[in-house]
């Protein structure tokens, strides 16, 4: 029941957007207000989970055994919360709500009614697919919905058709489809092993059933399956070396989609990987998956760090920052219960910080009409609010207090040193230092200096405070709160998730 409140509203919003043509602003508003229903459903689920209940849903017809097809344990609840929160924010800050449509000064950055209609249909479907993916207990359904997110988002990456956006979305859909097909090979291999042990069973693809059988599965098959799953879902999560689509897609998508992809979609792919990691760990002991996670995590960090140094485009710079944080979280998930706790908390913080950054980046791009760092000068002068928030967000991302990422990175490194990985942690720290210095360097260039008058939208010289900016203070509040204190329900939620994922 609670699941229908979660998934039906975005589907309804997509339907409304599809039926109303041409696009009208009220469609966007309906979608935005409807998104509050999944958000409250997510809070309800989280509350139930914290109290020890696990909501499930499923049915059984004659041939069709779908018992427990949807199931929200604490890990799911955490992810559902992240997805719905960013989803609500993205829908309220979507293009097509209000006067923006008619503002002639937005020039080539304004969207036409057809584009807006397409956008509002697919962004809602995209959110619905992500919510299904994280509440599915059946790993087959999880795979199907994650593949569906690729398709839905590919429709709206090139909202403006030009060479760059077409190229980005082509790379995105091809790389992700191929990657996700490999994840399906992994899923099939996992199921294969189950079948060869205990015969066919319709509910064998249920994660709970898989996990219960896992200790009996053949380790050599599970090893192979996990490699496929890691490559597959890793592609979607943007773990190096399968990250190549990420900077392109993030650079070319409309801002709310980028925010959703960088925070929610990434988390969903990571979630799928974690579910399988738990199964593989139960079959193999944790050493195997941990070493794979460490290797790829460190590789992601390395590639991201040096790409950030060389970045000339601030949207791509944040895409590389996503890869950096992906790498950090991979390291965390490989470091036992302590590291897993840190990584999950990091995931929550990263969701808040990254979505904040991509909405701000959108403001900046509209003002300066260019994604290049060197053309973006004097942010504090031209856009005091955005500039200040931008500085705050960026400093949070590189791990300065009082943002929550400071705490989680600290916890993560502590976990690493406690488990005797001094070299790994040392290398990671050095790479974080590289990221830190180059981010500060880029930030300095953007915040100060004289903006060249020709490349700024001079219509409104200084920025006025608006509700759109006020909404972003929610992210700031979350980040500061998580930096200063850990609310007890969240700690319970994460602790329960750690118990699911990591056996000490």
């Amino acid at each position, binding site marked *: 029941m609670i699941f229908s409140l979660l998934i039906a509203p975005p589907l309804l919003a997509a339907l409304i957007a599809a039926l109303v043509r041409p696009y009208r602003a009220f469609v966007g508003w309906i979608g935005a207000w409807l998104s509050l229903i999944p958000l409250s459903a997510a809070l309800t689920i989280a509350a139930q989970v914290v109290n020890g209940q696990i909501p499930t849903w499923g049915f059984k017809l004659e041939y069709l055994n779908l018992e427990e097809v949807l199931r929200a344990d604490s890990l799911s609840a955490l992810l559902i919360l992240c997805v719905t929160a960013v989803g609500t924010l993205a829908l309220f800050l979507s293009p097509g709500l209000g006067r923006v449509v008619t503002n002639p000064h937005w020039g080539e950055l304004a969207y036409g009614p057809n584009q807006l209609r397409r956008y509002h249909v697919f962004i809602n479907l995209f959110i619905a697919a992500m919510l299904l993916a994280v509440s599915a207990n059946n790993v087959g359904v999880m795979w*199907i919905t994650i593949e569906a997110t690729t398709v839905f988002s590919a429709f709206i990456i090139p909202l403006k058709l030009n060479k760059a956006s077409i190229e980005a979305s082509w790379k995105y859909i091809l790389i992700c489809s191929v990657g996700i097909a490999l994840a399906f090979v992994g899923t099939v291999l996992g199921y294969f092993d189950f*079948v060869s042990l205990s015969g066919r069973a319709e509910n*064998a693809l249920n994660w709970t059933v898989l996990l219960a059988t896992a200790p009996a599965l053949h380790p050599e098959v599970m090893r192979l399956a996990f490699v496929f799953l890691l490559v597959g879902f890793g592609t979607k999560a943007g773990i190096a070396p399968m990250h190549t689509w990420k900077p392109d897609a993030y650079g070319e998508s409309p801002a709310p989609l980028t925010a959703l992809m960088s925070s929610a979609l990434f988390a969903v792919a990571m979630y799928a990987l974690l579910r399988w990691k738990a199964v593989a760990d139960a079959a193999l002991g944790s050493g195997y998956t941990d070493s794979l996670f460490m290797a790829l995590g460190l590789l992601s960090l390395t590639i991201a760090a040096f790409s950030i140094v060389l970045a000339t485009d601030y949207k791509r710079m944040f895409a590389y920052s996503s890869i950096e944080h992906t790498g950090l979280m991979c390291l965390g998930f490989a470091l036992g219960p302590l590291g897993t706790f840190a990584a999950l908390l990091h995931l929550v913080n990263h969701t808040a910080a990254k979505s904040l950054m991509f909405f701000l980046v959108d403001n900046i791009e509209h003002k300066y009409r260019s994604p290049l760092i060197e053309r973006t000068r004097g942010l504090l002068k031209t856009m005091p609010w955005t500039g200040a928030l931008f500085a705050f967000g960026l400093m949070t991302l590189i791990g300065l207090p009082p943002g929550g990422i400071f705490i989680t990175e600290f916890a993560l490194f502590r976990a690493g040193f406690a488990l005797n990985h001094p070299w790994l942690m040392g290398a990671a720290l050095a790479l974080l230092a590289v990221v830190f210095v180059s981010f500060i360097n880029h930030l300095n260039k953007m915040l100060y200096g004289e903006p060249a008058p020709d490349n700024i939208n001079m219509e409104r010289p200084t920025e006025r405070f608006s509700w759109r900016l006020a909404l972003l203070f929610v992210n700031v509040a979350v980040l500061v709160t998580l930096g200063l204190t850990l609310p007890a329900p969240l700690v319970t939620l994460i602790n329960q998730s750690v118990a699911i994922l990591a056996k000490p």
Partner: protein
Amino acid sequence: MNDTLFSQLSTLGSSIILMFGIGLLWRKSLHAYAESFKWQSVALTIMFLIIGYFGDDHELYVVAVVLFILKVLVIPYYLNRMENRFGDQRELQPYVNVASSLILAGLLVLLAYAITRPLVLVSELSTRGGMPLAMGLIFVGLFVVITRKKAMMQIVGFLVMENGVALLAVLGTFGIPIIVELGVFLDVLMGFLVMQVFVYHIHTTFESIDVDQMNELKH
């Protein structure tokens, strides 16, 4: 007796399906690609029916019908439409030439044999002999995606890879649960439709469907 026949049929069928995949490597025109894919899908449908019959699993008949409609009728129809729209495009200079691709394909199949060894050892199904071939087909499809320059050839490579996955699933497990199977088909169809929409976009924006024209995005 029945068992030997079944295992021989499944190995033979998988080999034929793999051959259609490797066939892509020396064919050059989109027409040939589309035909290879279509006939491969026909062979795959027959494979599903064989396994359904010998494995006594009637769900597989349903899956086979859906597969036939999707991969033999619908997708080839769209491929033909693209062919009519763009003319019979030819892949003249793939990143790897024909001779080396064939050698590499052979190596990929060998690799598939090596990595699926544990599966074959674990399984007691009579179809296990075909599993390395299915894995080989997945690798060959991936290879086609990576080395072709024309967007449409990449799509066919992706579809061939999907056929490999479907073959692996049916050989290894006599079919994954039907709801998942149907969901996968739906995803393949949607993914294919989006990709073909993009081919039209690529054609109008780049005035060519060579993906090596795409070099706008760097750092």
